[in-house]
């Protein structure tokens, strides 16, 4: 009798082949469903005489947008209007993520502090802000700004050239001059130099054990180099000062109450979650690690920076990524408080053109892209800090 291994296994009992078969079947099913949905939608739209396609992107938008990073007017196209919206979403998300990570980390560490008051205050903050729906918080902060601040004609002036009123925070900016472009390049160079310096210092310390003050040198470089460049390029000091003319301030740069309320709401809300993520990460590092680090004479700040945080980060980064995505997605609540984010602009576009399916598809595509890009970046970072097996 031959060994059973030689026996011909029928197709329907071979787990490997069956697996491939079921996968193919599922893929086919999904494809058919997609085909049905798209075909059906197009047929429905045609039967109801609703125009389809993305032609509207090139047409004149003919609506204004309250704030924009790039030049925009009602005479521009829908495409440009949507781009303005995307930039507005990006700005509030990016600034929001940076502030959230900083503030959340501080809060998380504070909750673990041995200082009784600090730990309780932090715990209280986290519990309160986690439990109030973000939309309510946004309404609160927005109302806080417009109810509390005076109108532009009675604007507060905390410093010369800075005005605070219910139109926003308006401040003077330096007049355009090539010196600022040079200083910007100098800043970039200084950042690059600091990165190189850090690598060099780490290598030197590994080899020779000698310590190099990277932080101090880095700060000196990053502040000093642009300042020197600015000075030698003519040291221009002319400012564009905001002046009240008619209803509003002209000149200078303004931060609107809508932006401020959205940013504040998102940061305060998401920080509470990030704080818990950070606390979980720190607590996941064994007690022995801290005790061992302290026993070899490291200062508490070094214990945190060199021993605890590098290990905690591995636990922190994946849930932190999801909090970043939450913040980005929650920024779409902007429409409730009048900040012209992407959803707000796309909403106006949908209503004016009536092309809801295309508009919603665009919204989904843009948010999907933001989320995937953030995830990709954070996964790369996660891999970088993962345990290196030797």
């Amino acid at each position, binding site marked *: 009798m031959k060994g059973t291994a030689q026996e011909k296994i029928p197709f329907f009992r071979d787990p490997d082949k069956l697996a491939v078969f079921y996968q193919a079947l599922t893929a086919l099913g999904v494809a058919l469903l997609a085909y049905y949905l798209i075909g059906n939608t197009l047929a429905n739209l045609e039967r109801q005489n609703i125009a389809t396609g993305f032609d509207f992107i090139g047409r004149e938008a003919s609506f204004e947008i309250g704030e924009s990073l790039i030049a925009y007017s009602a005479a521009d196209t829908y495409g440009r209007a949507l781009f303005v919206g995307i930039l507005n979403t990006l700005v509030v998300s990016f600034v929001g993520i940076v502030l959230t990570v900083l503030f959340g980390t501080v809060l998380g560490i504070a909750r673990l502090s041995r200082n009784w008051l600090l730990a309780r205050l932090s715990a209280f903050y986290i519990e309160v802000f986690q439990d109030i729906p973000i939309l309510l918080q946004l309404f609160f902060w927005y109302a806080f700004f417009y109810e509390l601040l005076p109108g532009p004609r009675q604007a507060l002036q905390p410093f010369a050239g800075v005005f605070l009123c219910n139109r926003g925070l308006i401040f003077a900016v330096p007049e355009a001059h090539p010196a600022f472009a040079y200083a910007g390049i100098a800043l970039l160079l200084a950042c690059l130099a600091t990165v190189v310096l850090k690598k060099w210092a780490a290598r030197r310390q590994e080899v020779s054990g000698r310590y190099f003050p990277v932080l101090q040198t880095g700060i000196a470089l990053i502040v000093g180099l642009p300042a020197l460049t600015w000075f030698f390029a003519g040291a221009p000091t002319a400012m564009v000062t905001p002046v009240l003319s008619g209803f509003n301030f002209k000149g200078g740069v303004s931060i609107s109450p809508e932006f401020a309320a959205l940013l504040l709401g998102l940061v305060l809300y998401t920080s509470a979650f990030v704080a818990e993520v950070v606390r979980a990460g720190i607590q996941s590092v064994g007690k022995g690690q801290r005790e061992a680090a302290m026993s070899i004479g490291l200062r508490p700040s070094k214990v945190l920076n060199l021993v605890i945080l590098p290990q905690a980060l591995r636990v922190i980064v994946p849930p932190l990524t999801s909090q970043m995505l939450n913040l980005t997605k929650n920024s779409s609540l902007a429409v409730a408080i*009048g900040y012209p984010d992407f959803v707000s602009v796309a909403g106006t576009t949908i209503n004016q053109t009536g092309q809801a399916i295309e508009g919603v598809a665009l919204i989904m595509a843009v948010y999907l892209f933001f989320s995937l890009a953030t995830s990709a970046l954070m996964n790369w970072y996660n891999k970088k800090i993962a345990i290196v097996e030797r």
Partner: protein
Amino acid sequence: MARVQRMVPAVVTALCLTAGVAVAGTLDDVKGKGFVQAGVNGELFGFGKPDEKGVWKGLDVDTARAVAAAVFGDAEKVKFTPLTAKTRFTALQSGEVDVLTRNATQTLGRDTELGLDFVQVNYYDGQGFLVPNKLGVKSAKELDGASVCVLPGTTTEQNLADYFRQNKMTMKPVVIESNAELAKAFFAGRCDCLTSDASQLAGIRAVAPNPTDYAILPEIISKEPLAPAVRHGDNQWKDIVNYAVLAMIEAEELGITSKNVDEMMKSADPRIQRFLGVTPGNGKALGLDEKWAYNIVKQVGNYSEVFERNVGAATPLMLKRGLNALWTSGGLMYSPPFK
């Protein structure tokens, strides 16, 4: 807001999934389920908003009731779906509502590209500006550089941008989705002026902490014929909704009110006899009961009654008939003969 974010995907899903929305036969659908599903504003005082007891009130709400009275002989056989400016057309297209009576402006683009048909206008409106008196502005031409509070997703935004471009002025819009939130921000001084249809401005002024502190500027910068809408392609249903609106106008012209309609049944005037179904014909032509117009007038009222009850001089809106008067008194309300 939250509602919009739920509604848009829902409606889009409906468009994707439904195996074919009934284009014809809305009347049969409506009769089958036993009520008319009407899309209304939900937040606009005088046009569509529940009162403190939860009873729906408003000119648009009464228009939907007139349709129910025509179809069922019972003005209460109607259910209301509050819709935002953004979701209203999609909700109608996808079959979520049978008729849209939500202060929607009739435009060429909407009539064609959106797959809708507008019927008889039930309110002639126009976009204006509401300003606080303390601003000292007497004309919209003085609004250069102003911050303007706007409700999103209407022709309002486009009219506003057009007006400022025509007059070489600049402005900063603050676009807030909810009527209530927008009004709060405006009253707190976030914007210099608020723009919307004049009827809405009156409604917003009525809920101000101190209504006399605000004024509507004389400039009307757009034509806003507000009309009910139905899905394109169902001509029978369109006729019914159209003539339900016209019946209220014709009743006013014929001097028939909800109070005297029973006496009018005995009238010798052939026009009144035809209108009230004493002389049959109109009902059969529309596929309705011969007493359809009688039911509208009896249960909802004629146009004048509906207007005065919801937005007229005795209401907080204090709107005058203006363009909405009968053609015989210099307005635009004109009904073709009912024969």
